[in-house]
């Protein structure tokens, strides 16, 4: 019946039905011929069908008896003996089966369409799944073996039987470690990557579609709603098909019904990884309305996996047991990797599953990953929009893409015909590496929290230069660039100025590589600049050696620096840079002389004064604020040398028990530090730390002079600066070191005020930090000395408490016992230093001091 005729029939029926039977006969005869009979039949049926289906159907036993889905068991389908039901999805049933008529027993899985579900659309989809599976051959995808139409007309297909457990359950049952989880995840990625390369998007990746076998091999199952990129059946129209998903693992574009691409699988893999690591999914969509789901998945930023991991210990509502993973293992790279896969905008995610897997694998191999923290970028970008931070990530990516390929190909074809072209590329790479190492690096140098990023940048760039240099010996400019590269690496590893990673040994190696090149260049060139550059590396080596207390080598490098610079000064006496550098070298020589065991203290003072004399002779001008190629302005260089020279003279006075003189000189140092801090706006982290040191020195002298409230003001200011610097960059060794001293000074002030309890609190804070620093750099003798002093001072405070105690004798004795054990602990550190030949001259009296203190408190205990 066609629908137009049916519409006419219905209209006629309705109007006639309401008529009086007499009128109806008349009206009926008026109807057109083609519908008259139909209407007549309907009218008569209507009269007889009063009760027909007028009451809803009744359900009764029998009708609703559970269909026996196991009716297949024991039967054979196309030569497969059905064994048992192993799964049931929305439309399909899965049975395990065994191949008959085969020499070996092969267990397989057979998928069939559920009865009652065999609509055309479902059959089509079933056929598509089979087609897709047949195009995929991968060890981590359940393999299609066979397929066809069974005798009673339903389609089926045979797959490899995966005996295992769903992913999440497997991880929980087997108590997999972080590494083991990631290893499995990488295999899953390789399967999805394979599908993508065959133009198949899975679209329904979730842990229950991934089975893991006993030998930890995951297999991807259920391509039931997968999409063939090459398929253009009208049914695959994304507007409709795009809306089928499992909400927990669906991407924003799936939920919004937008175009689904391979990036959708990247997202779902991101959710899977999130759950593997954090034990929970990023969003809780269970029981939520569609609007709420849209809001969570499409608008809310997911919490970092490390935070989710931690939070779930507070709740009992976990679907799977929390993994045995420590929060700190996720913080940083893994957090960043997962969040990158979960970006709302597909274009911000990994460009492919391959890239995603590559980052995870880089993490596993301890290599830097490409994923960056969004918040860090955001924060840094806001903090210094003018610092070009935004370009760094892009530059890194470009570098790794272009350079990785270019360097290799350059080496491969250098002998060939394309040499000219290769050289051109070679020079491009070199320019890029240099720009990264200097322009980009320097632009982030003063950003809080940037230390690891700087190391990564410099090491990468250097790595490329190293490769290039191997193929181009004799090129002086390139040699010079290499030397600069090594020098920069040394700075980041453990240079004495600027925030660094506290790796003195690594720094020395890098600096010495640089020096070897620089010295050969001095011999080859007449340019006074080369002398200056070589002198500078000597001085950097000297500084690191000072930090690790190798005075003998340090002295060599320090005096070498002064000697090598002399020709430069002679050639250009008015060169500001050479002047400032010379001032610094004298300061450094002074430092060496006071640290060395048999150093001449007077020669040291002479050098400090010489240094101050040189720098104070330079007239101040706005021009001094201009940035030099190394990122520092002349003004910064001058003030940092000046404040340091004053500080050293102050320390000398302090050692000579001249507190008044020390106080005066320290105030001069503070003045210079304040000038230093005001050169840049906002002030650099480094200048803030210097300021903190100067504040601490003045504060300490005030405290020693008994001016406790003045002292507190200085020390509070110091603590504030240091805490800020440490909060901004918890890796900043210098800031931590100064913070430890600040707490120590505050402890001293409390002690002087007679509040020993509060004093001990601060001293212990100082102690904790100094122990942490010792862990980071066991070669930093200066810090170890501070640690020993802090410990000794805790002893002093206990001794003082004991002597003032008016309580029971027992508590007095307890305090003395405490004091004695702290003194002994301090003594042990000093003795160990001396045994290893690492006890600096200015600490030489310490062993004696401790022995005296121990004897004193032991005597007190006895009387």
């Amino acid at each position: 019946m066609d629908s137009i005729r049916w519409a006419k029939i219905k209209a006629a029926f309705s109007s006639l039905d309401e008529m009086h039977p007499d009128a109806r006969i008349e009206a009926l005869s008026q109807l057109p011929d083609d519908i008259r009979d139909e209407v007549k039949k309907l009218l008569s049926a209507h009269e007889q069908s009063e009760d027909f289906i007028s009451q809803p159907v009744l359900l009764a036993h029998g009708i609703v008896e559970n269909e026996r889905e196991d009716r297949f068991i024991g039967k054979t389908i196309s030569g497969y003996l059905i064994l048992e039901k192993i799964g049931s999805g929305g439309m399909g049933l899965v049975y395990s089966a065994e191949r008959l008529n085969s020499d070996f027993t092969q267990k397989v899985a057979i998928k069939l369409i559920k009865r009652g579900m065999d609509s055309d659309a479902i059959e089509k989809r079933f056929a598509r799944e089979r087609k897709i599976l047949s195009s995929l051959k991968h060890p981590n995808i359940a393999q299609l073996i066979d397929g066809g139409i069974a005798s009673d007309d339903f389609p089926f297909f045979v797959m490899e039987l995966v005996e295992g457990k769903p992913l999440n359950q497997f991880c929980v049952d087997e108590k997999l470690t972080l590494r083991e989880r990631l290893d499995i995840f990488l295999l899953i990625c390789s399967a999805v990557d394979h599908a993508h390369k065959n133009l198949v998007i899975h679209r329904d990746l979730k842990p229950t579609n991934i089975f893991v076998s006993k030998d930890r091999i995951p297999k991807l199952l259920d391509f039931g709603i997968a999409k063939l990129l090459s398929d253009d059946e009208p049914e695959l129209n994304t507007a409709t098909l795009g809306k089928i998903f499992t909400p927990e693992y669906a991407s924003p574009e799936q939920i919004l019904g937008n175009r689904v691409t391979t990036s959708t699988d990247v997202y779902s893999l991101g959710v899977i990884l999130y759950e593997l690591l954090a034990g929970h999914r990023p969003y809780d969509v269970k029981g939520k309305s569609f609007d709420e789901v849209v809001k969570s998945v499409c608008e809310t930023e997911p919490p970092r996996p490390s935070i989710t991991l931690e939070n779930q210990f507070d709740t009992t509502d976990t679907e799977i047991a929390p993994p045995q993973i420590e929060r700190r293992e996720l913080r940083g790279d893994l957090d960043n990797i997962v969040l990158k896969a979960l970006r709302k905008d597909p274009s911000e995610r990994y460009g492919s599953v391959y890239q995603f897997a590559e980052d995870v694998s880089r993490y596993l191999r301890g290599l830097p990953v490409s994923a960056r923290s969004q918040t860090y970028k955001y924060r840094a970008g806001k903090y210094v929009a003018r610092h070009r931070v935004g370009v760094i990530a892009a530059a890194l990516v470009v570098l790794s893409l272009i350079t990785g390929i270019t360097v290799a190909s350059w080496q491969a074809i250098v002998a060939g015909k394309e040499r000219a072209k290769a050289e051109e590329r070679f020079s491009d790479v070199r320019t890029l590496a240099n720009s990264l190492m200097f322009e980009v690096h320097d632009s982030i140098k003063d950003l809080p929290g940037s230390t690891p990023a700087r190391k990564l940048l410099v090491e990468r760039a250097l790595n490329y230069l190293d490769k290039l240099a191997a193929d181009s010996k004799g090129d002086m400019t390139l040699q010079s660039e290499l030397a600069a590269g090594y020098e920069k690496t040394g700075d980041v590893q453990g240079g004495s100025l600027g925030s660094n990673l506290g790796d003195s040994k690594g720094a020395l190696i890098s600096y010495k590589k640089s020096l070897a090149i620089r010295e050969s260049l001095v011999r080859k060139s007449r340019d006074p600049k080369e002398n200056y550059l070589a002198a500078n590396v000597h001085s950097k080596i000297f500084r690191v050696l000072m930090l690790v207390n190798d005075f003998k080598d340090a002295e060599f490098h320090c005096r070498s620096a002064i000697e090598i610079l002399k020709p430069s000064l002679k050639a250009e006496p008015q060169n500001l840079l050479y002047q400032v550098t010379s001032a610094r070298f004298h300061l450094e020589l002074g430092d060496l002389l006071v640290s060395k065991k048999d150093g001449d203290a007077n020669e040291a003072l002479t050098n400090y004064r010489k240094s101050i004399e040189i720098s104070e002779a330079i007239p101040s001008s706005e021009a001094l604020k201009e940035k030099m190629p190394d990122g520092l302005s002349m003004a910064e260089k001058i003030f940092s040398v000046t404040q340091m020279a004053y500080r050293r003279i102050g320390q000398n006075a302090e050692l000579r028990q001249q507190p008044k003189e020390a106080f005066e000189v320290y105030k001069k140092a503070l003045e210079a530090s304040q000038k230093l801090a005001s050169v840049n706006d906002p002030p650099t982290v480094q200048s803030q730390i210097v300021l903190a040191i100067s504040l601490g020195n003045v504060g300490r002298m005030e405290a020693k002079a008994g001016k406790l409230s003045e002292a507190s003001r200085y020390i509070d200011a110091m603590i504030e600066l240091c805490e800020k610097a440490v909060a901004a960059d918890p890796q900043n060794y210098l800031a931590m070191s100064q913070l430890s001293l600040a707490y120590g000074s505050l402890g001293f002030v409390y002690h002087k005020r007679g509040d020993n309890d509060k004093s001990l609190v601060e001293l212990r804070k100082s102690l904790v930090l100094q122990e942490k620093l010792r862990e980071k750099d066991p070669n930093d003798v200066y810090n170890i000395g501070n640690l020993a002093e802090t410990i000794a001072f805790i002893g002093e405070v206990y001794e003082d408490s004991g002597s003032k105690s008016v309580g029971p004798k027992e508590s007095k004795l307890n305090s003395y016992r405490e004091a004695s054990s702290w003194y002994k602990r301090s003594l042990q550190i000093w003795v160990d230093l001396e045994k290893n030949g690492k006890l600096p001259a200015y600490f030489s009296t310490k062993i004696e001091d401790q022995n005296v203190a121990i004897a004193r408190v032991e005597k007190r205990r006895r009387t």
Partner: protein
Amino acid sequence: MIKSGTMKSEVTVLLDEVGQSNGDNHEALEKLLPVVYNELRRLAASFLNREHQVSLQTTELVHEAYFKLTNQRSVDWENRGQFFAIAAQAMRRILIDAARKRKSLKHGLEKVSLDDSPTISTEMDAGLLVLDEALLELEKFDEQQCRIVELRYFSGLTIEETAEVLKISPATVKREWTIARAWLYQRIKAE
């Protein structure tokens, strides 16, 4: 496989999907149908076992299934309409599948289970199967009437509820329902 825990949200989400597309989202419908099918059959069996009832009407069953599957305390009428439309189709399939199965059992030599209620007559099975065939034919030229029959007969909805589900007036439902019954009756009688 759909887990019971996630099924609730999935059903609600899918229902919203269907609702937003005015029932045109066949993919979502196809995903929902098996869920509802299984739930209704499960519920029916448990109702019958629990109450020692001989028979029951589908209305209660469908409402119960709705609350179970969507986990909603208050009734979202939009959702509920979509759900009843699907439930009606599912009920139809359940009954037809069962009737077919019994028919095939009788053709074969397999033992008829004692659980099979004697109150269900062969006549009724046959009636259901011919009704299903007639409905298939009707659906070809008047899909709406077919839906109305499913909702009224297989889901036990009132005229008003049916109108709500299909977003048409009760008068239209009444008129179309009358015509559909008449057409089906004369179609079956003609066999």
